[in-house]
């Protein structure tokens, strides 16, 4: 069963107010909780130790847990992931950070050929209980090496889970669940929404998380099960399947256009919450898939195939995909590239005119 329209549990700080965190603080809090509960949890990565990460997600952990539990590494993504696998084989629960998803490729062989297959090839003797955290996605004028969304390169490999949060509340709960999971997890953090829920209207003032209900992050331990989607809004007109930054963009566009949609924040791509997908599409009969990643062989292709296979007789219109273009992420034309409100609007018009 998918969690439907879950209300965030209330977290009160010392003054009795809701404790509101941005996504960076929520991730930091998750790491803190996981490290506090289990001294096998170790955190490391380029600039992730003393300095606490270029995005500050690991700030304060070295001071609190010591240098052998939160440390800096050489600049070798291959080495970072490979040593994480080795530590996992020993019995630790490593949470390596890759500074940007765009730099994960030197470690790709270790992820695909090693981490993802260790359990299978050793018939369960060994596994890689590692959680690879990495900021991903564009919208920060980072050019092609600080903007990519490579999630489908990981969902395509068997044996690795892929998780992408869209709110501070989810970021904490999902990260704790990922760390506690005994299989390798890629945990992609949408960096465009680290500090606020970006709605896709890049020329409007930026919002911060403080006024968003899902920035209320309870203290202490809670886990959001992997493989469960979140119903963000409920509506009869269509189903939107999306994740990460695009959850907020989709929501803003639906509001702007007065469209009532089931927006499903998938949260975990593998394993996918297929029940939630099927239930919603069968109800609405229309399906819009939105992701920022390039289109060809993107995760949207998988979603589209699944919906077609399982909901064909309920579909009232062809499935629509809104994605990034099949080019590297450009620097100056970032907003022409980004699958923003205009691209989503055009797909909506097509779907709703059927």
């Amino acid at each position, binding site marked *: 069963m998918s969690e439907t329209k879950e209300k965030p549990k209330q977290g009160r700080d010392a003054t009795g107010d809701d404790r509101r965190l941005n996504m960076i603080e929520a991730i930091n809090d998750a790491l803190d909780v996981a490290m506090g509960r289990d001294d096998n949890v170790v955190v490391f990565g*380029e*600039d992730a*130790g*003393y*300095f606490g990460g*270029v995005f500050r997600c690991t700030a304060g952990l070295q001071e609190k847990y010591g*240098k*052998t539990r939160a*440390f*800096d*590494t*050489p*600049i*070798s*993504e*291959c*080495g970072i992931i490979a040593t994480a696998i080795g530590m996992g084989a020993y019995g630790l629960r490593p949470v390596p950070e890759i500074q940007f998803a*765009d*730099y994960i*490729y*030197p470690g790709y062989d270790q992820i695909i050929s090693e981490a993802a297959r260790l359990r299978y090839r050793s018939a369960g003797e060994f596994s890689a209980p590692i959680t690879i955290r990495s900021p991903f996605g564009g919208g920060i*004028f*980072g*050019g*092609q*090496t*600080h903007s990519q969304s490579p999630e489908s390169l990981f969902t395509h490999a068997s044996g690795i889970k892929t998780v992408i949060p869209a709110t501070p509340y989810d970021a904490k709960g999902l990260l704790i669940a990922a760390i506690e999971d005994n299989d390798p997890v890629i945990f992609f953090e949408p960096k465009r929404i680290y500090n606020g829920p970006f709605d896709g209207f890049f020329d409007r003032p930026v919002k911060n998380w403080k006024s968003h209900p899902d920035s209320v992050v309870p203290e202490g331990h809670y886990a959001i099960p992997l493989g469960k989607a979140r119903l963000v809004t409920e509506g009869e007109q269509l189903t939107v399947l999306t994740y990460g930054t695009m959850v907020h963009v989709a929501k803003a566009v639906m509001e702007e256009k007065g469209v009532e949609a089931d927006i499903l924040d998938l949260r975990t791509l593998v394993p996918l919450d297929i029940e939630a997908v099927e239930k919603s599409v069968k109800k609405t009969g229309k399906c819009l898939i939105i992701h920022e990643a390039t*289109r*060809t062989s993107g995760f949207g292709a998988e979603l589209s195939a699944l919906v077609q296979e399982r909901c064909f007789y309920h579909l009232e219109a062809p499935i629509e995909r809104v994605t990034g*273009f*099949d*080019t*590297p992420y*450009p*620097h*100056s*034309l970032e*907003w*022409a*590239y980004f699958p923003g409100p*205009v*691209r989503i*609007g*055009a797909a909506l018009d097509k779907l709703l005119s059927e």
Partner: protein
Amino acid sequence: MADRPERTDNKPQLSLHIPEPNYRPGADEVDFSAIEIPEAGAQPRPDEACDPTETHGLCTDLIRVLGEDNRAHGPWDPKLDPDTLREMLHHFSLVRAFDERMFRGQRQGKTSFYMKCTGEEATSISTSMALQSDDMVFPSYRQQGVLIARGYPLLEMINQIYSNSGDKLKGRQLPIMYSSREHSFFSISGNLATQVPQAVGWAMASAIKHDTRIAASWVGEGSTAEGDFHAACTFASVYNAPVILNVINNQWAISSFSGFAGSERATFASRAIGYGLAGLRVDGNDPLACYAAERWAANRARTNSGPTLIEFFTYRAEGHSTSDDPSGYRSAQERDAWPLGDPVVRLKNHLIELGEWDEDRQAEMDLKAAEKVKADTKEAEKNGILGHGMHQPFHTMFEDVFEEEPWHLKEQNAQSQAERDKKYPDGVPH
């Protein structure tokens, strides 16, 4: 009795070493006196065609030419004429003025990003002056000095930094990720160390074709931890490729000191020993030593005598980039305490000592450099600044993905035009 592994209870407990730099923010007093700085001129200069082993002593030494007396000493003195030295100083002056202005431009919101090379100018300017202008260079992001020494127009650099309509790279790349085939300057990748083995490959091709040109690459000390660097060393050694592998050891990789790349155990130059490369370790703030070492390696490569790995020992005087604030992880005193001085000051003082320069001429040169940069900046701004207008036509986004646009990119191109018309019914802002 044989020393065989046994299970006993009295084994020592293992413990993990985590490197730690000496001077974090707020450190009492920065003291670099432990760094061994040999006398200028004291290092032997082996024959350029020597066996790599003859250089191995130099891998832990420090090649220096300019002494405290501002004079050139020893066998590594490249004996450059005053005009060449003044030309070098002029490049220094220009790069410094350029870095200042571009950094400020980023702060003023004219672009997204910038990186200075302050304190490291000699490692790119003096070295590239020791190469031929058609030798192929594979720089990292901190080698603006190479482009400037090769006469690449500042205006083009600023257009690229502003990602504007004049940008020859069509606004696609992050600022400072230049490319100029005309200047034998390879397109810079943001992915660290990838280009080191590519330089080796270019050099191998040059050798396959019996060409006369060699290749040189630059990489930061932090990036030598990447596997690509080690692939480069192996291939360079195996094929005796005509290539120079420059390692810029500026002590820092963002917030991580060089200990996280292995400097607590061995010098970066001494990587050469294990791979069977020639290796040199050089005072990177000594412009004459930088020139001489690069020249030695270039002559060696050009005569089929083999590749060289050079470590330039220097200091990153400023933050990593405009996104970085070093006061969060290192003592602010480090910069002033750095024992090898400032390359610009050292070259200037050398020329003054030779009677070929004076402070007035220096002040005039610096002023002119600043004016030149200012004028080119104004000129570039006519082509736009980042984030204020869509400076490139949308269709350029789809060009050069492939040589020819396949059907799916044609469709997406058309889609982006439709989106543009919808978003900007009155025309795209420029």
